[in-house]
């Protein structure tokens, strides 16, 4: 029905849409703006005092300090004919940690923001229709 090429292309677009939503627009997976930091952490982040900090992202409330979490997000397995896998290869524990702090970037119930799920549906549905067998088939039910 689908090709791995289709899912590979879709996965990179989903990856970047997700990054824009979470790290660019600074919204959590439910679409809410991230809450503010503790005064102490906000001060450190603003001053660029975090080790290896991305100094262009000092004023955002998005979970960007070094950029490792953002960079690590992507395909962790190659796309197949049946789908693709996005996630964190080495920084996954930070996602759980953020969840504990009330900063959900991906949860079991809501792995992706609604808008991105709609985007996936909008790409998958036409592809599915395109690849459905053409023509009519008559089924006789009963005798």
């Amino acid at each position: 029905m689908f090709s791995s090429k289709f899912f590979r292309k879709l996965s990179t677009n989903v990856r970047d849409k997700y990054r824009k939503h979470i790290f660019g627009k600074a919204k959590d997976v439910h679409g809410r703006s991230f809450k503010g930091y503790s005064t102490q952490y906000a001060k450190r982040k603003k001053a660029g005092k975090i080790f290896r900090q991305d100094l262009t992202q000092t004023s955002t409330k998005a979970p960007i300090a070094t950029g490792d979490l953002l960079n690590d997000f992507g395909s962790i397995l190659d796309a197949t004919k049946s789908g693709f896998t996005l996630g964190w290869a080495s920084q996954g524990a930070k996602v759980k940690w953020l969840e504990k702090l009330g900063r959900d970037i991906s949860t079991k119930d809501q792995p992706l923001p609604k808008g991105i799920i709609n985007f996936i549906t909008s790409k998958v549905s036409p592809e599915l229709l395109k690849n459905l067998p053409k023509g009519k088939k008559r089924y006789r039910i009963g005798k």
Partner: protein
Amino acid sequence: MANQSDIDNSAQLIADLVDKARTELVNDLYKLGLNTDDATAFAQSLLDLDVEGTLKKKLQKATSAYANAHRKVLESTIGFAEIEATTLTTFAQLNEQIFDNSIIRTISGNIKTEVSKGILAGLTANEILLNVSSSSISNAQMQTLVNTTLNSYSRTITNQMMNVAPANTKYVYIGPVDTKTREICLSMASADRLTESQIKSRFGASVLVDGGGFNCRHKWEIASEEGTSFHKPKEAKERLNV
């Protein structure tokens, strides 16, 4: 529940185990040096000696401490699909290998240099040990090594995707463009979309896994139609020209 601090906490344990292994190895090497009066012959025998292999054996505990910490982190990794246990094991083994290689290469190179320098300068075993310790890996450096290894591991996963992607797939170099960014990273960030072979011919193959080196905050990844505001060629070009 595992969290990133499992790895951070393990850095201390690993540093202690590394210290112990390093001391044992330096003592062994020093004894070897005492058996010969000819400093050149000693330096040669040092070069012939499998320092890396010996250190690898001595560091088995440190490697497994790191692997266990990383395995916990991996198990809590969130994917948008179920990942099989065998895949997790492969990932953990791969990361273990990367850690092993980088730590052993760094320390064995350092020990070789310091021991041969010490023998030539007529230093005592303790003086050599002191030099090796002071010039070798501190806890902060161990932290760097752990960070670097995790990021190299992340790049390795991306690199595996590159190996199966079509040859004409384009890649971009993402990550911060700020005052801390190294020149090599600025050069790669300022490049437009490149194929894997173009990256290798312009910057070498190692950048695909190592990025710009220790503590690098960047990586090559497949470019999307969506585009990303985290690839900043214009800003990188401007910074290069400053």
